[in-house]
């Protein structure tokens, strides 16, 4: 097989991967890598150069991952943080762990936030009950009055500020955990490549 064919074979997959991953400036990246491979071929080192770049799809991801992480850190919103961690979680354990913790914290934050309108709509069904007989406590919402425990609800209207504080606190902790996970993915800690 000729060297030109080897280069074209690499590029057929590399350019497709760059386009699929929606990498900004992909044409420049592709052109630069082509220059690199052609220079290596001219020196009779094409096989070595191709081996250094590795699998074209993985190599394209090396560009995409860094850009994605940067975008998520700049925009700093839950949707983008979770989306980026979800994409990276298939290849990075830290992203998978970060996604799990961040997702759970956001879910709890949403659940606490949801308590506020419920307290306004159905105050008798919303609140904190401590059932001494069963040694459990319930902070939440009952779907019908028939399910209410015998004990009195403890917080009253204070459900609103308590829920707001928990929702905000858990959201901020989730945000911090998500950003920490993204930071772990930043260059220098992302998938090691042969240097």
């Amino acid at each position, binding site marked *: 097989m000729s060297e030109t064919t080897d280069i074209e074979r690499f590029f057929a997959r590399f350019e497709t991967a760059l386009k699929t991953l929606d990498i900004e*400036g992909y044409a*420049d*990246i592709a*052109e*630069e*890598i*082509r*220059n*690199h491979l*052609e*220079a*290596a071929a001219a020196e009779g080192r094409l096989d070595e*150069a191709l081996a*250094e*770049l*590795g699998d074209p799809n993985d*190599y394209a991801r*090396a*560009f995409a991952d*860094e*850009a994605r992480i*940067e975008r998520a850190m700049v925009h700093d919103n839950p949707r983008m943080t979770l989306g980026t961690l979800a994409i990276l979680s298939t290849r990075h354990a830290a992203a998978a762990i970060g996604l799990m913790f961040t997702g759970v914290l956001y879910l709890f934050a949403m659940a606490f936030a949801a308590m506020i309108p419920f307290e306004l709509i159905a105050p008798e069904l919303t609140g904190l009950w401590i059932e001494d007989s069963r040694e459990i406590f319930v902070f939440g919402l009952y779907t019908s009055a028939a399910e209410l425990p015998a004990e009195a609800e403890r917080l009253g209207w204070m459900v609103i500020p308590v829920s707001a504080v928990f929702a905000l606190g858990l959201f901020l902790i989730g945000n911090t955990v998500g950003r920490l996970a993204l930071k772990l993915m930043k*260059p*220098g800690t992302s998938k*090691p*490549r*042969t*240097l």
Partner: protein
Amino acid sequence: MTIDKWKTQLRKGAAELVVLALLGRQPSSGVALLKRVEAFAAIGLSGGALYPLLNRLEREGKIAGEWQPREVGRPEKAYSLTVDGQAWLTAMQAERNSFDAELKQILEGDA
């Protein structure tokens, strides 16, 4: 961790400083940068690591890339250090010098 993995981490930590230092002395294309570090086997910078690094440094505004025509062949992208990149390089070098000095003291048994 094997010694090879540790060596890879060491090289990864140094790669950004190496590239910025080289570009600080002379603007270069990726191909030319690899030529310049070819003789430094321990630094071990390869094409596989260099281009994503250049791409990131350019996005971060530490280096600027410009396509330039060549007498023969396709145009090449030449990189140079930006003002921000120079400041970053100076800060990195200062940190590195302190780190190296303390590491040397520890390794020589002064601690």
